[in-house]
């Protein structure tokens, strides 16, 4: 539970030198902020500009002069946006569910219980993390093909359904629960499952938020693997749909393209902003290490 910030006294002093340093700091921060969210704001602004408005060049303004949702209407008319969104959400729900349930169970057994095979399991996790996805995707594709799962959601979901890193995160989280808490529950006669649900799960809330956000983002963002597995357009996720949109003739109007990509970014931003407090807390408490 380390506190990330240092004492504020250091910079918020009274002397003019400190004030000047503070102003410089804010100036630098604002400059970097412009770089990090500038492209996103430009994207939003462009998507809201009407047909008559310039996007580039000298006469282009940063804010739309005549905001309209025409580009959004075009995107939904010309491309099955709603279908892509639905498909992306299905992938995210499948992934988040399996990434929450199974790593939690496995992490508990790894950290709290002694059993035959525990050490072997731990090393299997470590070894599996040595292989970057791109270096094993040829084999993964062949395996999915042999299972008859090409061009299906399950085929996209299965290889990444349980990430070793999430098992390790949950293992570290449960290991940090003091023994005394569990002993008290044992004396009360609570069975193993009850202790797991009543004591361990609530203690892991911070890490679970990190796992949920990370796996949601990963599933929403994923491109290469669904691109390999999915063939028919009815199954396309938003990322695939966007790439397709950019290759189509509609991409001649950047407003439409920007509207499409705003749609891809907004849900995930909303999720993140809603959970960010817990997220940064979870990260600070060591879920990331």
């Amino acid at each position, binding site marked *: 539970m380390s506190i990330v910030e240092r004492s504020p006294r250091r*910079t918020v002093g009274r002397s003019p030198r400190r004030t000047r340093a503070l102003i410089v700091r804010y100036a630098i921060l604002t400059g*970097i902020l412009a770089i990090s969210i500038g492209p996103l704001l430009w994207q939003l602004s462009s998507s809201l500009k009407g047909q008559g408005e310039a996007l580039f060049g000298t006469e282009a303004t940063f804010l739309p002069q005549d905001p309209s949702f025409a580009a959004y209407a075009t995107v939904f008319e010309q491309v099955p946006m709603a279908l892509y969104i639905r498909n992306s959400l299905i992938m995210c729900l499948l992934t988040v569910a399996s990434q929450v349930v199974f790593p939690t169970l*496995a992490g508990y057994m790894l950290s709290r*219980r002694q059993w035959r095979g525990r050490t072997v399991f731990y090393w299997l996790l470590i070894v599996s993390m040595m292989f970057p996805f791109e270096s*094993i995707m040829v084999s993964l594709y062949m*395996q999915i093909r042999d299972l008859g799962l090409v061009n299906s959601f399950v085929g996209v979901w299965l290889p990444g359904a349980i990430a070793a890193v999430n098992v390790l995160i949950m293992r570290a989280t449960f290991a940090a629960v003091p023994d005394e808490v569990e002993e008290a529950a*044992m004396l009360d006669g609570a069975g193993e499952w009850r202790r797991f649900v009543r004591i361990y799960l609530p203690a892991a809330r911070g890490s679970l938020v990190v796992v949920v956000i990370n796996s949601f983002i990963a599933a929403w963002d994923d491109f290469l693997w669904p691109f390999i597995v999915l063939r028919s357009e009815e199954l396309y996720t938003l990322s695939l749909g966007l790439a397709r949109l950019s290759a189509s003739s509609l991409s001649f109007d*950047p407003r439409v393209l920007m509207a499409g990509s705003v749609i891809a970014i907004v849900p995930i931003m909303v999720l993140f902003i809603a959970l960010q407090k817990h997220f940064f807390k979870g*990260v600070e408490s060591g879920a990331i290490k």
Partner: protein
Amino acid sequence: MTTRITSRRAAVRAASPPARRRSRGGATSGAALYRQWWTPLLWTAPAIAVIVGFGIFPFVNTVVLSFTDARPLGGGGSWVGWENYARLLTDSAFWLATRNSIFYAVVAVPLLVVLPLVLAQLVVTRIPGIGFFRTGFYAPVVASMVAVALVWQSLLSERGPVNSALQQFGLISSPIPFLSDTTLLLLSAIALTVWKGLGWYMIFYLAALANVPKELYEAAELDGAGPVRQFLHITVPGVRLTMLLIAIMSGIGSLRVFTEIYVLGGATGGLGGQARTLPFYIRDTALDPIAGNAGYGAAVSVALFLLTVGLAVLSHRLGSEKEEP
């Protein structure tokens, strides 16, 4: 003798019943609790199955495939010995992709090791509004890669805002071909990777900076050291291990790049596939339904894996060498 042991045991039991109970309930000897030995296996079976089936087996299988002529749609699969590896040596497209991937890592890693640290140092102190800045810096991490790559594609296009601004200020006379020149395309993709990765690695540094004793900064300030000297002499040594970790992570990340090139350079990966990275090349050679050769693609995959290991070892060497003086 038997009696003595029994009595000693009894004595131990009598002397410390709570200690005994603790060891039964604690993490060390929980196995005794299970009437059914298979309970732990039941809880962990799904994780073990996926980790082994889709994490470890595929690597072994990739190595095996690399000695065959397997086809992505089935068929083939007979043993060809070292043929695929012999073909690698003379395949100029493979070497080009390897060069591109290495170039990517060489440029991106230093930027991703240094810039997020500067960023973390700037937001570590809790001044008013800092939460807003932290969230803003993290926003690109959350945004989808395909979506932001499309934005960058528009920004960097011939008529895009970057070129038109540069022309407006008279810095250039004709637009810079960010997306059609191979080297510039790679550099643009690297810029995108770095831009999107800054916030992610910043988080690691924030956690590391919390462990740098703040007395060091106070002492340095009393000695009259400015922010730059404090950064170089206190912050950098204080987070060296994290820097090493990030060098390895971002290096592996650079070797995995596909989407940036795919979107910025068009589906071909630059003009004539000149800007393709190794994952891009693997996809093109192995998984094309008609002309694909999974066996050869597997050989390229093994090369990618070895390159990844080499990069991690190299980073580790460089990281621990610095520790000597």
